[in-house]
């Protein structure tokens, strides 16, 4: 466990109902600075819904979501608009890739910079030196991020023309462009083969360690999860059923029964 590290995200008793269905049921979870935390559980356990609540896409039925930005004020973000959440410093990727398909790779990343820049309409028309400077900075930042995820040489390609794995990495780069302190990744390895997954593994670790960005990760690929996460939460039917280190989780009978199955991690 991250020793005495500052908490970044603190979720208390989060509940989300869809009509009669309780998709998330009193889940409590926290993420600290410099941590990589995983959230696993069977299909339909409510993991993505949990993300959606935290990032403001859904307004949770009950519970509290608190953020403590490293250099800012702590605040409750229940029901806050997604763009505000992102501005505060939590960015995400999507389970079903949601890139801006008909924009170039670089533009996708530049959108991530939107909330960190402030050119106005008039500014855009007049193109003052300040605006030009900001634009240049956006491009540069975008490039350096693309380099980090290995996409710099396809920067002018349309996002839709990228191979799947590259699209996943682009999503990560786009999220990082918002300068988050916490990155939420929803099944980043889905649809990747073991080789690609391995590269992804390295990328995530690098982001976590080198950039000092904390990571909360949903994933079904146990090899990846066990490899990189420091702590794991397990959900089933909307409830949290376990939490602990990879070792603890791997051997937790409840988790084995609900999720891993026998010989789980070779999947």
């Amino acid at each position, binding site marked *: 466990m991250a020793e005495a590290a500052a908490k970044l995200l603190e979720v208390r008793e989060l509940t989300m109902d869809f009509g009669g269905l309780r998709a998330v049921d009193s889940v409590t979870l926290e993420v600290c600075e410099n941590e990589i935390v995983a959230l696993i559980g069977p299909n339909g356990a409510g993991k993505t819904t949990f993300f959606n609540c935290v990032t403001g896409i859904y307004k949770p039925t009950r519970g509290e979501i608190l953020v403590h930005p490293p250099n800012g004020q702590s605040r409750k973000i229940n029901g806050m608009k997604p763009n505000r959440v992102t501005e505060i410093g939590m960015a995400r990727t999507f*389970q079903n890739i949601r890139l801006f398909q008909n924009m170039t790779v670089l533009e996708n990343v530049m959108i991530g910079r939107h909330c960190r820049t402030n050119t106005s309409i008039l500014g855009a028309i007049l193109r003052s030196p300040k605006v030009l400077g900001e634009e240049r900075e956006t491009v540069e930042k975008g490039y350096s991020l693309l380099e980090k995820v290995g996409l710099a040489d396809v920067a002018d390609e349309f996002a839709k023309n990228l*191979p799947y*794995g590259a699209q996943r990495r682009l999503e990560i780069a786009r999220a990082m462009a918002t300068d988050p302190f916490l990155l939420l990744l929803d099944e980043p390895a889905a649809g990747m*083969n*073991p*080789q*690609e997954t391995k590269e992804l593994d390295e990328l995530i670790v690098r982001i976590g360690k080198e950039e000092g960005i904390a990571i909360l990760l949903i994933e079904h690929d146990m090899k990846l999860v066990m490899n990189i996460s420091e702590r794991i939460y397990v959900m089933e039917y909307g409830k949290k059923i376990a939490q602990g280190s990879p070792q603890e989780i791997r051997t937790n009978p409840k988790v084995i029964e609900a*999720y891993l*199955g026998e010989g789980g991690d*070779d999947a």
Partner: protein
Amino acid sequence: MLKVNSINTFYGNIQALKGVSLEVHEGEIVTLIGANGAGKTTTLMSLCGIVPPRSGEILFQGKPIHGLPGDKIVELGVIQVPEGRRIFPNMTVLENLEMGAYLRKNKLLIKQDLNMVMDLFPILAQRRNQLGGTLSGGEQQMLAISRALMARPRLLLLDEPSLGLAPIIIQQIFDIIRKINRENNTTIFLVEQNANQALKLAHRGYVMENGRITLADSAANLLTNEEVKTAYLGI
């Protein structure tokens, strides 16, 4: 049973398949593995007439089927479980299953098959009146396979059945595929990212890269092939 002779398939101006040839024999499980975007899904879509190849030929039981419209190919018994499951979201589980048997007329046999798949996946029997769109990923995958079985496939095409599923479910799915192959004697053509498991299950395998078949061998051989090991098994 199935013979594909150097087909070329395009999306608009993008060539996704470049001279792909392969064969599947009666009763076999054959797997096609390859990286993302290699063209595996496209291969299946070409077989089913959804994205017909521009050139080359596809023979099913000796007869050419390229250029036939999709519904005619389904009629011949070539049934696909598509990538992403594609459950009809606003139909109940039962209706989804009935759609699988859309081209069949014999009510009695359909009823029989309904019971058969519900035995195979008891959870579906429990959920029979729930809307397909509200099922969890694993349930949807089972429903998708069952829906295909409802068509009495001669050749079952499976596209990444393990995608996005929990480990425990993946195991179940693979067990069931094996069972279908053994008990119903259904020929299976399996597309997978999860090369390890797929090769363990299959008799033979093809490796696809950038729209071309680059390797073809028995599954056992592929499992020990060095290239495959490093590129697809992540070892």
